[in-house]
């Protein structure tokens, strides 16, 4: 179904003169670039054959090395679906995702994932969770201890290494999850509404920490959120999606210093501009 649709589109494009901006984009993609993640015409439909519902339609997005991109959109717009496709948890119905030019087919250690519900291994201690990936890599115990200590310190949990996840608050669990992803040293980190389950205060504290960590670690981050404020605070680029089925609506490069002030006039300027665009989409769902 989706394949058929995309063929039709291709035919139309072949007949009509291609828009020049599109051409320029493709030219940039073909050159050996610093594009870490390339999402190419990805569509995704759910449901049994015959009565499928499209969740994502023709998503084209590139994320540069060390870039922090936030996916923003009304709930149900498919932003988490897109993240799950990049993670390799879901296969796209059409299109491909390339990481370093290689097609993504399965999850892998090159793409760390931080989930909204933390998803820590409950039978392992905090240290055991953080070293999980290092054990898989076969790192020696002494090296593992050093890496675990470094990342637990980075997220401020050095004193809690021997606790079990049930003993931690939500904010602490998410710090462990972030440390677990970082310790495995992936080039890319995918974050699916990681602070969505936290209270407002904890949320801002963790945003501050993530911003600080990113200034130290320089990962390529794809971050899903429905908080405009969070997106403007963290991202180099904010990608706004349409309401379901999800398409790209508008991209906002955020030209603010790395260390941001939530009360600066430029910050609130971005916030209100993006809010206006997001509201158009929300209004389609709840007129």
């Amino acid at each position, binding site marked *: 179904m989706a394949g058929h649709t995309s063929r039709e589109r291709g035919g139309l494009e072949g007949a009509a003169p291609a828009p020049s901006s599109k051409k320029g984009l493709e030219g940039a993609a073909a050159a050996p670039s610093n594009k870490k993640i390339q999402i190419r015409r990805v569509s995704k439909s759910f449901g049994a054959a015959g009565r499928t519902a499209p969740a994502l339609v023709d998503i084209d997005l590139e994320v540069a090395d060390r870039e922090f991109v936030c996916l923003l959109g009304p709930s149900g717009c498919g932003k988490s679906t897109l993240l799950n496709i990049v993670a390799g948890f879901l296969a796209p119905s059409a299109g491909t995702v390339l990481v370093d030019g290689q097609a993504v087919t399965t*999850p892998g250690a090159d793409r760390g*994932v931080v989930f909204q519900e933390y998803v820590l291994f*409950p039978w392992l201690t905090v240290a055991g969770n953080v070293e999980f*990936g290092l054990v*898989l*890599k076969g790192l020696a115990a002494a090296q593992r201890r050093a890496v675990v200590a470094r990342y637990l310190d980075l997220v401020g949990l050095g004193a809690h290494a021997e606790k079990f996840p049930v003993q931690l608050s939500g904010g602490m669990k998410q710090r462990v999850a972030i440390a677990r992803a970082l310790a495995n040293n992936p080039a890319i980190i995918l974050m699916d509404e990681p602070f969505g389950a936290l209270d407002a205060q904890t949320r801002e504290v963790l945003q501050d920490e993530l911003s600080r960590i990113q200034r130290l670690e320089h990962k390529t981050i794809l971050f899903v959120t429905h908080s405009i404020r969070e997106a403007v605070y963290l991202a180099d680029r904010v990608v706004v999606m349409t309401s379901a089925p999800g398409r790209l609506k508008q991209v906002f490069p955020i030209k603010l210093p790395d260390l941001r002030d939530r009360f600066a006039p430029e910050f609130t300027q971005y916030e209100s501009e993006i809010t206006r665009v997001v509201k158009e989409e929300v209004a389609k769902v709840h007129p």
Partner: protein
Amino acid sequence: MSSAVTRFAALLAVLSLWAAIAHGNARLGVVNPVLLPTPAEVVAVGVQSARDGELLRHVLTSLARVAQGFGLAAVAALGLGIVAGMCAPLRLMVEPVVEFVRPIPPLAFLPMFLVWFGLEEASKVAFIGYTTFFPMFVAIAASVLRADVMLLRAAASLGASRADLIRRVVLPASLPGIIVALRLGVGLALFVIVGAEFMGADAGLGHLIMEGRTFFNPAQIVMGALLLGLLGSLINALLLAAERRALRWRAAA
């Protein structure tokens, strides 16, 4: 502490009630006192049997049969349960067979086991293995199936291979269910060992009970039954302690 006191008091109350009824009957002669032994008489039979060394032989024989039959079944149920829990096509094939065999009371097949495996140890071990395998297999496969898919995703994103996923996620995640299945299996093994030893055995607690019937010694029958209860409680307590140790992460909060 207070719960331990309550438990002890409840046991003591039942024991006192039994003693009161048995002694009352002995005085009033409602039924023949031989048919209703007192606690003291039962203990006396036990002590006598223990002095002979017979009691230990019976207990060890029964325990060895339980250990072998249960052990074999546990290994098989664990292996097949994990495979069935992870592999949907296999589960679809195995499920109807298991669902058909499971409601058949195992004792219905006991004569067949005697025919197939003879009157020696093999028939008892095989029978216990058969009895305990199905419920353990079903419970283990179900708990493997329940392993959280998000945990598997998290592990895969940290670089876990299929073997890593089984060893480091599926097994620990389903450990609570596996331990429950093993406790169920041991309980069942103690349940059916008596029946297996009623027929064609020359030792074991079931044989001891049957001997009590043959020589018209109700005290010996009661002694054998109570001993089975005691063994069952002890084994269950050991397994519960092992469970608490293995799952201490759950109680850590």
